[in-house]
């Protein structure tokens, strides 16, 4: 039935009925869930996360027209592959921020601007987002980043330089910081 289903996905996309396309991509840390809308990349699911749950959330919050469509995520997969090989230091992918709003969104946008190979503290990010006293809320916003790796929340550390937390687990955060030559 494979070609039948591929044809269905292609026809759905051509008819404008593919609201959320997703695929699973390999990474050095395990499988990543990649999901996009017509606006851009909306979700990166880390290996430690429950991908079915993330797809359920997309179905509920964006549209239930969620289909597995690997071809729609070719450019995201290509850039991530290059990044993990250490051959790409800036993602050039349109992003769809609809899963976040308010202060959380401002924090995540501030994180998106941290350059490759650099870090910021939670306090600095809170200030960039417009409220330097909301350090704890900034930490929560980091943890709820819907587009990790591409929006580099792994570059946010505690003020003293301690790693802080990471949704994908601390070994992954450490490995990404090593990849970028920070550790």
């Amino acid at each position, binding site marked *: 039935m494979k070609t039948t289903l591929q044809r269905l996905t292609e026809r*759905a996309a051509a*008819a404008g009925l593919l609201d959320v396309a997703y695929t699973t991509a390999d990474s050095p840390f395990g499988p990543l869930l990649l999901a996009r809308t017509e606006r851009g990349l909306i979700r990166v699911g880390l290996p430690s996360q429950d991908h079915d749950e993330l797809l359920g959330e997309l179905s509920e919050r964006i549209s239930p027209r969620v289909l597995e469509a690997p071809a729609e995520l070719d450019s995201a997969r290509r850039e991530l592959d290059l990044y993990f090989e250490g051959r790409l230091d800036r993602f050039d992918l349109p992003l769809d921020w609809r899963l976040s709003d308010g202060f959380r969104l401002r924090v995540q946008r501030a994180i998106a601007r941290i350059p490759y190979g650099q870090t910021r503290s939670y306090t600095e990010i809170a200030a960039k987002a417009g409220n330097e006293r909301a350090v704890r809320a900034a930490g929560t916003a980091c943890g709820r980043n819907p587009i990790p790796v591409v929006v580099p929340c792994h570059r946010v550390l505690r003020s003293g330089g301690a790693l802080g937390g990471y949704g994908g687990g601390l070994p992954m955060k450490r490995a990404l910081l090593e990849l970028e030559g920070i550790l």
Partner: protein
Amino acid sequence: MTELPPFQTVIDEHAATVMAVLRGAVGRAEAEDCFQETFLSALRAYPKLEDGRNLRGWLVTIAQRKAVDHHRARVRGPIPVADVTEARDGDSPSHEPALPGEGNGIWQAVGALPPKQRAAVALRYACDLPHAEIAAALGCSPAAARRSLHEGIKRLREELA
């Protein structure tokens, strides 16, 4: 409104059932096109679906409708059909041409049944649906579904005897 699962889940869980229904209804050669039409219609309507509890019944209903459309198009069209075993009177969907060569055997005989009986038999034996779901798919009472199934089986017995 109940929460709707991602449509991919709906495809993964029910594609085989829909394909079996359509093979029973229009034959293997035509089932592919009807399958595409069924799922595209379903995908179009899906976000507005108010009750996600009987997705299989919903899909089977759409598939039945596509199969009927398909037969109507064939009846209207200029393609000559061999092996018309039933008398035809105009466009009535209860008198469709026999299905194209599906090979021999029981499914060919199933394909020659009147639509309700054919659907009931396909849903019961190709898809293993209980009577209540067959009834939901056909839009009739469980008793009527049981009757269609019974009539269909009886007729098959006679034809294949």
